[in-house]
């Protein structure tokens, strides 16, 4: 699939949560917080998405530290570029929506 397609809400918030390293549960909490409770990532969905995003190289899994069993993930440069492009796309959508609904 070309990388220029729109991201899903889940992917968008996962990437956004990973600007700094974060483990799975942290991503779930941060997403809920950012969207003020509107978007709630379920664990199964998140697990599948994290694996896919790692395969695509948009995020990486950090080496597991001693004494910690939770895996942490972080955004890659490629992931960041995709996220930046997506923000621009969403802005275009929102701007057009607002403009036309206002009847300009």
């Amino acid at each position, binding site marked *: 699939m070309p990388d220029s397609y729109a991201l*899903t809400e889940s992917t968008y918030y996962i990437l956004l949560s990973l600007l700094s390293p974060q483990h799975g*549960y942290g991503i779930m909490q941060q997403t809920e917080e950012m969207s003020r409770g509107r978007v*709630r*990532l*379920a*664990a199964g*969905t998140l*697990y599948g998405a994290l694996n896919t995003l790692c395969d695509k190289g948009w995020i990486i899994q950090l080496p597991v530290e001693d004494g910690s069993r*939770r895996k942490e993930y972080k955004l890659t440069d490629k992931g960041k570029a995709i996220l930046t492009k997506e923000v621009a796309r969403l802005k275009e959508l929102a701007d057009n929506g607002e403009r036309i609904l206002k009847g300009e």
Partner: protein
Amino acid sequence: MESRKTIRKWFWVWDFEKEEAWLNGMAQNGWVLESVGFCSYHFVKCEPGEYSMRLEMHPYDEAYVQFMQDTGAEFVGRMMMWIYFRKKTADGEFDLFSDIDSKISHLDKIGKLLGIIGGANLLIGIANTFSPARLGWINLLCATLLMYSLGRIHGKKEALEKERILHE
């Protein structure tokens, strides 16, 4: 008063949502699943509504179970390819899938497995029809049932795919 009980019950594979709803109903009534066996469910007493239950077809994978536990879910057990999880309702809502895509890929996983087992039974059934034992009909019966299951799962998938045209 007994604090444990076992119920024997059979669910068809396409009824996994019904199975989940039944387990949630039991938890609502103060009986939470403690372990699971072939067609048998072992419950232990809990506060009514203390837990919510989810089940998923997932090849057993330590990393996945660990991941689920990190998010506050408890691993109850597994039977065949199904994993059973529970979570305290006080710890928040419990869902395994939060978007249409992951629901579809879950159904895909179930469908693929049914297709493989169904196809194998069909081949064995045909081969056995010509063998002296004449037991091929058992495999052909299994194959028919599995193909029917596949159809039911496919129907659920199609309904979701229709929805996805408009929503995520």
